[in-house]
């Protein structure tokens, strides 16, 4: 069923992407050129039948859903927020952190007015508080979420928490964990049909169920 074209893999730029590449290379999908220090973003190893490209972590799911990549690795936070129509084939167990609600130490919620929530993850926040029937006012930000409660922009934040150091340094504390996060192997639903053998070989190499 597989055509002659390589398996296109979108990797998230940064430390997580480098870890993922190491796992994929170990699974038999090596592309040594990617380790060379260059500004190139696309790397191909014809012999291994693989082509990698580095993209912004939040864009991996778009590349995969739109078929520019057959597979990719994205955080569960991105999948929950953007809900791309893709297969979520494996939990790679790396890039572990949490999506959590954090507030200034000692913050007391006033249930008589909507809670002001600053976040990059508007959909996740809306679903979470919607599930509790809590009225909220979402303030969508694209970065430096932690300063929103300090400056009075919001009551709480919904954000990624890894070690909690940034929160501590800004006098914030975790109030509730919404969901644990880790890196997931995702695949385009059409691409999976036509490159099934290669994708299953990779999954088997990663210790997953490659059938």
């Amino acid at each position, binding site marked *: 069923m597989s055509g002659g074209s390589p398996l296109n893999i979108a990797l998230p730029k940064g430390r997580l992407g480098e870890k993922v590449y190491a796992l994929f290379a170990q699974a038999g999908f090596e592309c040594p050129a990617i380790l060379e220090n260059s500004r190139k973003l696309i790397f191909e190893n014809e012999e291994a039948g693989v082509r990698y490209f580095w993209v912004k972590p939040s864009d991996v799911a778009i590349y995969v859903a739109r078929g520019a990549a057959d597979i990719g690795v994205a955080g569960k936070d991105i999948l929950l927020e953007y809900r791309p129509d893709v297969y979520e*084939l*494996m939990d790679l167990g790396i890039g572990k952190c949490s999506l959590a609600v954090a507030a200034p130490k000692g913050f007391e919620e006033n249930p008589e007015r909507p809670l002001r929530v600053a976040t990059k993850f508007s959909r996740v926040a809306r679903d979470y508080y919607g599930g509790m029937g809590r009225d909220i006012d979402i303030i969508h930000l694209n970065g430096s979420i932690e300063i929103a409660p300090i400056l009075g922009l919001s009551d709480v934040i919904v954000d990624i928490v890894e070690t909690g150091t940034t929160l501590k340094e800004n006098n914030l504390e975790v109030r509730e964990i919404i969901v644990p996060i880790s890196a997931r192997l995702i695949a385009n639903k059409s691409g999976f049909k036509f490159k099934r053998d290669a994708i299953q070989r990779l999954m088997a190499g990663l210790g997953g169920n490659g059938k």
Partner: protein
Amino acid sequence: MEIRDEVLDERERIGFRLREAYHRHGFSRYRMGKFEEYDLYSRNKDFLLSDGVITFTDTNGRLMALKPDVTLSIVKNIRDRGDGLEKLYYHENVYRVSDGVDGFREETQVGIECMGRIDSRTIGEVLGMAAENLGMLSDHWVLEISHLDLLSAMVDAVALDGGMRDRMLACAGEKNLHGIAQICREAGVRPGAEQALLDLINTYGPPRQVMPAIRKIAEENGCGAWARELSETVAAFAGTDAAEKIWIDFSTTGDLRYYNGIAFKGFIEGIPDPVLSGGQYDALMRRMHRKDRAIGFAVFLNRLDRLAEKAEKAEKAEKEEGNA
């Protein structure tokens, strides 16, 4: 008067070729207007492929919509046939918000609907036509088939509450085995039932390879009748050229408030989204107080633009090679 092929664009050419095929199979054209009362869509919002509907107030004050869907209008306007069978095809524009696209888009789709006495022969004919359509579009295609009653029964067997059931079905649609295992852990599902569900979702491929395993899983979990129905439905493809391009795959799901029984999706190599989607929708018929059963499919012509792009590129490369 004959229309010369070169005055048609690729989308029109494909649309007319598919219509010709439907006509050959004894289907009649169903024509409809561009507008419909909004109420029809507000009552069946979850049936629509997208959330948005373009509305406007008509001169008599009624709230109208530009059609986001074809099937609902046909169901509304065709009377029950009882023991008979209504076989219709359409070629229409619909207006919806596509995934990942800001704003509304006009999309063209052709397709068929059968309403009345739907038996295994009719289901087989519809699946055969879906496979034939895909074969007319490309040599590299896959028609993925599942059985929603079987999937639903297997999910019900682990006795989840409503929210968990929806999450479980969403995980099935994503081939998300770790998600299914997580929900089973949260719900305290017994390991045997969990494993059966995981095995069902993880068993996909041509019927020749996977049907024995699916029948075994289904029989062991009291769902044998559905598996036998699925097996009989796909048996017509055995030994044909299409046999290896037909896949059983339980990640093909649908909203169980509208769909039931056989569900299917068609994929073409190089096109990221399914180009064909269909199945039985008896549940929708019941919701609209209809007694007939129904099955149909749509082909999304906008998604085929990539085929034309590919053909153009190949033609250009051939010309360049000739010049060299």
